[in-house]
């Protein structure tokens, strides 16, 4: 299953809720959620730990818009809009955590 998250994990509990309930699969961080994928933020350890259970992807146009494209945590996979479509098509189902 693909979990799509669009809220900043530093100001909203969505990312935490996803990690708490989902067991495995893929996560795609988009919009304000992309901040979680950047080095040096307080959630970095949590993101790294989650990589043991999930493949974590981040939408690069959203990171570029926020000036942080050069700071992706190692192991997080960068994707473009084409990659976004491939993720949706390649997973059995997906959940947009609003």
């Amino acid at each position, binding site marked *: 299953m693909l979990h799509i998250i*669009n*809220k*900043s994990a*530093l*100001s909203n509990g969505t990312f935490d809720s996803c990690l708490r309930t989902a067991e495995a699969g893929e996560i795609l961080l988009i*919009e*304000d959620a992309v*901040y979680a994928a*950047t*080095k*040096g*933020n*307080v959630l*970095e350890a949590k993101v790294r730990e989650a990589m043991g259970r999930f493949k974590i992807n981040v939408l*690069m*146009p*959203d990171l*570029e*818009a*926020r*000036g*942080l*494209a050069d*700071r992706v945590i190692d192991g997080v996979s960068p994707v473009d809009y084409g990659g976004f479509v491939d993720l949706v098509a390649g997973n059995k189902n997906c959940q947009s955590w609003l």
Partner: protein
Amino acid sequence: MSDIKKFMFVNRKAPHGTIYALESLEVVLITAAFDQDVSLVFLDDGVYQLKKGQQTKGIEIKNFSTTYRALEGYDIEKLYVEKESMDARGLTEDDLLVDVTVLTSKEMGALMDQQDVVLSF
């Protein structure tokens, strides 16, 4: 209008994902036209508004981050960033696109207390 009031704009939202950051900037520019004492505060995800190097072409949204640099021209020079918020996001003053005054949470609270009007975005 001869009475000058102290206006503070508290920015706590990341840019682009929601409209708050841009709307705040619009109101700040309007306020500047009335010759008031304006302070801008950046807290929590609001500090991301000032991140250098924002390239919004890929998401087809106007890059309003350059406007923060123009604030000086409107005599808006009081920009404050909370240290704790920057630290939590792995950011330093070098990452910001304008000169700011970095305050601790306590100092920020004291500054808020001095205001006549506080607008939160």
